């Protein structure tokens, strides 16, 4: 599991961690049942506070991505295929919502936005 | 307690050897010059009594070893007791060494048998107790610099007293009175018959002095901010 932390990012560190772990779980990089490093181990590796990693893991557990077993550690939770798909959709939906909000602010129309979308998809091929 | 003593010895062993080395010259000189065993006892006692506390306590201010030792799992009372015990052991070493030199040096005018007797030992220990029972609590509380101040202070006081005596034209020089009293006291001690009563009184005085000094030392030290 590779996590990269940026100190200059406006996002709180625990959020950076949760986001990266989430995306690795969703993409399949982190397999179901796989053990995650202990909160203390992770804190030391990332050179951050153990409170931060604890919070990140707690968030992940709340959202159902991770199970923590007392005395054993934390593991990637079994993902319901449907739920997984939903989670993936949610991530992109959130980003799109941001884009839409920004577009509104800047006065970009829906048509222009859809055009942009088309171009971007074409690009990525 | 043993741990403390071992630590004191390890920390101060070099100073102890230096002092003993300096003593060697001094004792050699004294052994050659002094024929009176009584004078020898007094001088040795004063020397040892004055110097050994400094060996055990002298480097504290410089190295803040007090703060170090008191950070160890040791109670302050143990620490204070340890200082006294260590000082007495050092004194024992000093006296033993003095006797050794007296016996060993060929030009020594004093025979060991003259100075080695229960009474002389007790008198010696008593004199030393007198001296260091004052110095030790003072040093524990005020540190090495405090002792310097004490010594210098008493000197100055003596000078001031003399000066005042001159001014006021007191018929009897106060300093001389004090010195005469001390001399008389010493003479009485040294010449007194070594009756069991006298010896026991000495022993009691020694124990009382030390106990009192330890108590005062501990009381002062317990309050000292390190």
């Amino acid at each position, binding site marked *: 599991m590779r996590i990269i932390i940026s100190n200059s990012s406006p996002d*709180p*560190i*625990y959020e950076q961690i949760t986001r990266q772990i989430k995306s690795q779980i969703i993409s399949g990089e982190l397999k179901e049942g796989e053990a995650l490093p202990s909160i*203390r*181990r992770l*804190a*030391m590796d990332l*050179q*951050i*506070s*153990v*409170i*931060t990693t604890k*919070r990140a893991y707690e968030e992940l557990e709340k959202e159902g991505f991770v199970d923590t077993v007392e005395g054993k550690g934390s593991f990637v939770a079994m993902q319901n295929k449907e739920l997984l798909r939903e989670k993936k959709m949610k991530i992109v939906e959130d980003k799109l919502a941001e884009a839409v909000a920004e577009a509104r602010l800047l006065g970009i129309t829906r048509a222009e936005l859809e055009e942009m979308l088309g171009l971007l998809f074409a690009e990525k091929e | 307690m043993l*741990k403390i003593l*071992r*630590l004191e010895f*390890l*920390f*101060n062993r*070099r100073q102890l050897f230096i002092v003993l080395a300096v003593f060697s010259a001094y004792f050699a000189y004294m052994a050659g010059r002094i024929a009176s065993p009584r004078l020898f006892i007094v001088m040795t006692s004063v020397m040892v009594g004055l110097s050994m506390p400094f060996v055990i306590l002298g*480097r504290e201010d410089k*190295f*803040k*070893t007090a*703060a*170090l030792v*008191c*950070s*160890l*799992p*040791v*109670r302050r009372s143990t620490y204070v007791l340890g200082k006294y015990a260590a000082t007495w052991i050092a004194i024992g070493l000093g006296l033993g060494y003095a006797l050794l030199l007296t016996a060993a040096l060929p030009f020594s005018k004093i025979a060991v048998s003259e100075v080695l007797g229960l009474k002389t030992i007790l008198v010696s220990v008593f004199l030393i107790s007198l001296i260091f029972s004052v110095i030790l609590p003072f040093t524990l509380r005020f540190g090495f610099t405090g002792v310097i101040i004490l010594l210098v202070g008493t000197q100055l006081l003596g000078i001031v007293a003399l000066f005042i005596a001159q001014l006021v034209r007191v018929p009897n020089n106060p300093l001389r009175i004090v010195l005469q009293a001390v001399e008389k006291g010493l003479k009485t001690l040294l010449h007194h018959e070594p009756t069991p009563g006298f010896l026991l009184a000495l022993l009691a005085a020694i124990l009382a002095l030390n106990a009192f000094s330890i108590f005062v030392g501990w009381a002062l030290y317990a*309050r000292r*901010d*390190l």
Partner: protein
Amino acid sequence: MMDNAIEIKGLSKAYKGFALEDVTLAAPSGHIMGLIGPNGAGKTTIVKLIMNLIRRDAGEIRLFGLDNRRCEAEVKSRIGFVYDAPRFPEDLRLDTIASALSAFYDRWDEVRFKELLKEFCLPPRQAFKKLSHGMKMKFSLALALAHQADLILMDEPTAGLDPVFRFELLNRLQALIQSERKTVFFSSHITTDLERVADFVTFVHKGRIVFSAAKDSVLESWGVVRAKSDKLRPEDVPEARGHRRTEHSLEVLTSDLAAAGRLLGDRAVCDRASLEDIMFFVSKGNGHA
């Protein structure tokens, strides 16, 4: 749920010209707490009071749940201390010093100590006075770690150390608290060190505690608000804790960045505060640059 390695309540100590007043803090086990504050704020005094090197005037100090005075020896046998100017008799060799001190600790691990000396590149037969400042610190640390202390208590451990060794030292501290039983408490005025490794931060200023909280929440909630002097006054900023004026601009420290952001919107730039900012503004900030 979390036991506290250190619990201080209402601690006070008065000197001529300086007083520590009503200090209350708790350092949870298994974590690193940093004590920050400018020089003279009272950090060293707090550490000395914890070790009972100086007598407190009032208040309570409990270490591992035990009173630090009544159970002095027991408590100290579980503490490894590192003071900012390690003082050992200069002419002694390292192994002699260790020999004198190790006898006092039941849990002294000679093997571990030798390993640490090797790791720190400290020759055991070297005289203490021949060591550089950094090496003296390392020696102090080796001694503190060798007896498997539950609490490592340090006063300005990184002052005067080069960045490389500071980095290593902080790493080592983090490695230490992999065990939940071990706790680290250190005072420093080098805020970046604390920002890196501390779980909790206590800020002391002029003998009083300004805050004692999780480092993350401090860094998330404190902020610096910047604007042109004509657009903003210190009173406009909620929870202002100090400000600084430069020729054209005003900078205000706030302990509630979110509220400031909401209230001031576009009028000012709101950034997160670093521990250094906090220390600076609280210490000096009510005046001109």
